[in-house]
């Protein structure tokens, strides 16, 4: 009797619990979502920190901003500039003055006209120190740009002017063949002056936001989803095929894969790398692989005399790292070993073939040279080298392998390696302050110009984490920047890079590879050749 009583009470409570859970929901047999024909679900890999073009500095925000804000110059899937808000442009003979002619009848998503004034406002905003753009470097070569960034000139003096309602003129300090690439960047996506003035820093609220791109924002649940819907006022709206884009911030790649398998996501951001082989086997052509315009390397701390004054040591350590083993056996996902200070793919291969000449020698010979240099550097069993590798938690097994390679080459008694694992922000701060021996580093090129790499080795550049400084290098780079002759520029930059490379301030390791799953129903997106992974939703079709 007692048992019956308790069991029936139990059943009642479980039942009511389930009813409570159901009561607030609209639970038509949802099951696995059927794919909607007007909405594409795209995983961004992480949450969007900002949708303000001037404030963005991460790839996630950039991905969304490409959809929301059109810059002066658009780009295609091969990362080539094509007409955008500006229908055409011309460059003066000295390469310093760019004149852009706007399309007729341009409108923001609220129907208000896009004027030359909005464009000037967009560029000035990027330079304005009060806005604190992390990418204000993009305007540093525009007349007065650097002075404005440094707070020494007024924002209005920036060399971006409206000649009339349809024409914009941008004047540079030095000629820059990459300037048109800068005009495609998400940071210069055109914003509405009226809208920003009206709403102040609340302008990015989806209820207020006015956009100039192919899409406009409808909903944004932070960490949840961001729903974009087609902007009917976009100049090329007829060619925007998919009505809604639903962005998801799936940080966990396993969760992303599960969602992909159950049609919750059409395009993943990445894949769980430990399942690479399995996914390749199971999903075949749905898995896309492309080299990313980005490099992985380690910095020597050139502030410390034991590294700064000992080139033999730096070269020995660099040579002892077996990059082929790292890319083939430790990472094994299609990365390419790197022996130069820029990737061979940048500017469509204009800087390929730089690399170290010893890279072509047989490995045994490389090791013999390395050992010889190590001895010349003054280290041996009686005078061992003590060195610390600083890295952040995501660095995987690479640093273990590098430490092992050094010890194998030079002997465990001659080199003692400690590894210092740091949390990301702490690591960044220490690296910036040059508080390390050897530190992990990496760089994603922003646009298809070698300039995005050359500043990594430029004296006093904030991006120069090794604090390497060779004024000869700076001179060559400056000279290249001031020339208007493309061949001369390439020659000078190659010369500079060769110089820096032979100074061994960093240990280049490999060029990154990226992986992405794309549902076969998605057409029109070339996921195999977009080295910069700059993607726009307007390319997608079903």
């Amino acid at each position, binding site marked *: 009797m007692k048992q019956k009583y308790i069991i029936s009470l139990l059943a009642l409570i479980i039942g009511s619990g389930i009813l*409570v859970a159901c009561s607030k929901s609209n639970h038509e047999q949802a099951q696995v979502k059927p794919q909607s024909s007007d909405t594409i679900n795209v995983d961004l890999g992480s949450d969007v920190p900002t949708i303000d073009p001037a404030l963005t500095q991460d790839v996630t925000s950039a991905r969304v901003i490409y959809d929301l804000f059109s810059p002066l110059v658009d780009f295609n899937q091969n990362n080539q500039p094509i007409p955008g808000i500006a229908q055409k442009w011309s460059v003066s003979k000295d390469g310093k003055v760019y004149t852009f002619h706007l399309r007729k009848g341009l409108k923001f998503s609220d129907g208000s006209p896009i004027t030359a004034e909005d464009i000037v406002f967009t560029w000035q905003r990027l330079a304005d*120190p009060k*806005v604190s753009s992390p990418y204000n470097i993009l305007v540093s070569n525009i007349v007065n740009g650097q002075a404005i960034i440094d707070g020494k000139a007024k924002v209005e003096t920036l060399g971006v002017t409206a000649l009339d309602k349809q024409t914009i003129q941008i004047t540079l300090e030095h000629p820059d063949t990459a300037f048109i690439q800068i005009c495609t960047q998400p940071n210069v996506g055109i914003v509405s002056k009226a809208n920003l003035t009206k709403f102040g820093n609340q302008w990015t609220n989806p209820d207020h936001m006015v956009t100039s791109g192919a899409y406009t924002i409808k909903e944004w649940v932070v960490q949840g989803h961001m729903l974009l819907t087609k902007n009917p006022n976009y100049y090329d709206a007829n060619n925007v095929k998919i009505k809604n884009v639903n962005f998801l911030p799936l940080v966990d790649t396993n969760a992303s894969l599960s969602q992909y398998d159950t049609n919750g996501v059409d395009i993943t951001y990445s894949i769980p790398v430990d399942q690479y082989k399995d996914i390749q086997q199971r999903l075949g052509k749905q898995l896309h692989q492309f080299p990313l315009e980005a490099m992985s390397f380690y910095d020597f701390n050139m502030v410390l005399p034991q590294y700064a004054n000992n080139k033999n040591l730096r070269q020995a350590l660099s040579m002892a790292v077996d990059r082929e083993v790292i890319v083939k056996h430790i990472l094994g996902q299609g990365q390419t070993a790197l022996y130069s200070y820029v990737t061979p793919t940048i500017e469509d291969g204009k800087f390929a073939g730089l690399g170290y000449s010893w890279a072509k020698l047989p490995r045994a010979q490389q090791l013999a040279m390395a050992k010889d240099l190590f001895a010349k550097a003054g280290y041996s069993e009686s005078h061992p080298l003590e060195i610390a590798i600083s890295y952040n938690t995501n660095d995987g097994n690479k640093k273990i392998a590098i430490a092992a390679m050094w010890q194998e080459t030079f002997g465990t008694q001659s080199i003692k390696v400690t590894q210092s694992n740091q*949390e990301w922000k702490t690591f960044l701060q220490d690296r910036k302050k040059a508080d390390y021996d050897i530190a992990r580093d990496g760089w994603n090129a922003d646009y298809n110009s070698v300039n995005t790499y050359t500043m990594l080795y430029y004296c006093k550049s904030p991006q120069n984490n090794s604090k390497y400084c060779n004024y000869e290098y700076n001179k060559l780079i400056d000279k290249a920047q001031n020339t208007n002759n493309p061949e001369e520029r390439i020659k000078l930059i190659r010369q500079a890079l060769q110089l820096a490379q032979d100074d061994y301030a960093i240990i280049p390791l490999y060029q990154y590879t990226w992986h992405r799953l794309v549902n076969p129903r998605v057409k029109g997106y070339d996921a195999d050749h977009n080295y910069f992974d700059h993607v726009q939703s307007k390319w997608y079709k079903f």
Partner: protein
Amino acid sequence: MIKFAIKRILVSIPTLLAIITLVFFLVHMTPGNPFDGERALSAEALKSLMAQYRLDLPLWQQYIMYLNDLIHGNFGISMKYLGQSINSLLFPDNMGGFWVTLRISIYTMSVAVPIGILLGAYAGLHKNSWFDKMVVSGNIFFTAVPTMVTGPLAVLIFAVTLRVFPAGGWGDGDFMHLFLPVVVLILAYAPTIAFVMRGSIIEVLSSNYIRTAKAKGLPTKTILFKHAIKPALLPVISLLGPMFAGVLVGAVVTEQIFTLPGLGVLTTNAATNRDYNMIMAITILGSTLTIVFNIIVDLLYILLDPKIKQ
């Protein structure tokens, strides 16, 4: 009782203030800056950002201004989601942040508590029966196998293989989307409740006054419901307060696995990004909830146990 409640609330204010002070200084002492990134900011831009967030002022001044904002119910502006207020991130108008976690926690607890109590009580009454052994081993099993394991396993079985439920996401907070995460959380919490309840029932049943009741010849039903249940519930209730607060701020792993836009993900992001204001807000929210639940537990105790009233 009202007097007691007021006293408890008054005592909790200095506790909260101490927590706020401690966390404020600890957070600001952590190495790393919210605005450090792979790309270094220009000096002027950094200066202007530091000024916007008052980080250029001496720490004590920042502290006083922070307390002042707090009194006005303002948690400040996020340093990760630039320009967005913490209030709107934690308590958004649409579904998200705290509301997501609150809903999941209520569903979880409203199922886990009755199930846990009943299973525990039944197991305790039939000590050493097969049912009792199942409850005990179930508790050991689910304590040893955390949500980090049950979550992905549930996704694999019910979403990827059987395709009965979606693999994750919030949907519109509908039944299908919430079923798996809630079940996973119930599995994490119900066994503990059952285990405590079981132990407590066993202890109560072996106490002298129950033996007296039995000796007096009272029927089992009367003994159980009039004399045993109430005292046996006390340890469970004291467990529930911190547990509920824990679900509210601690479902980090479950939220990550099922990609729910709740507090958990906000918390981890805030810590890794040094979003000072967000860390502070979440800590204050967590401590307030813990204090509030503890007060509720104390009040329930008084209702159930007249000894404490004195």
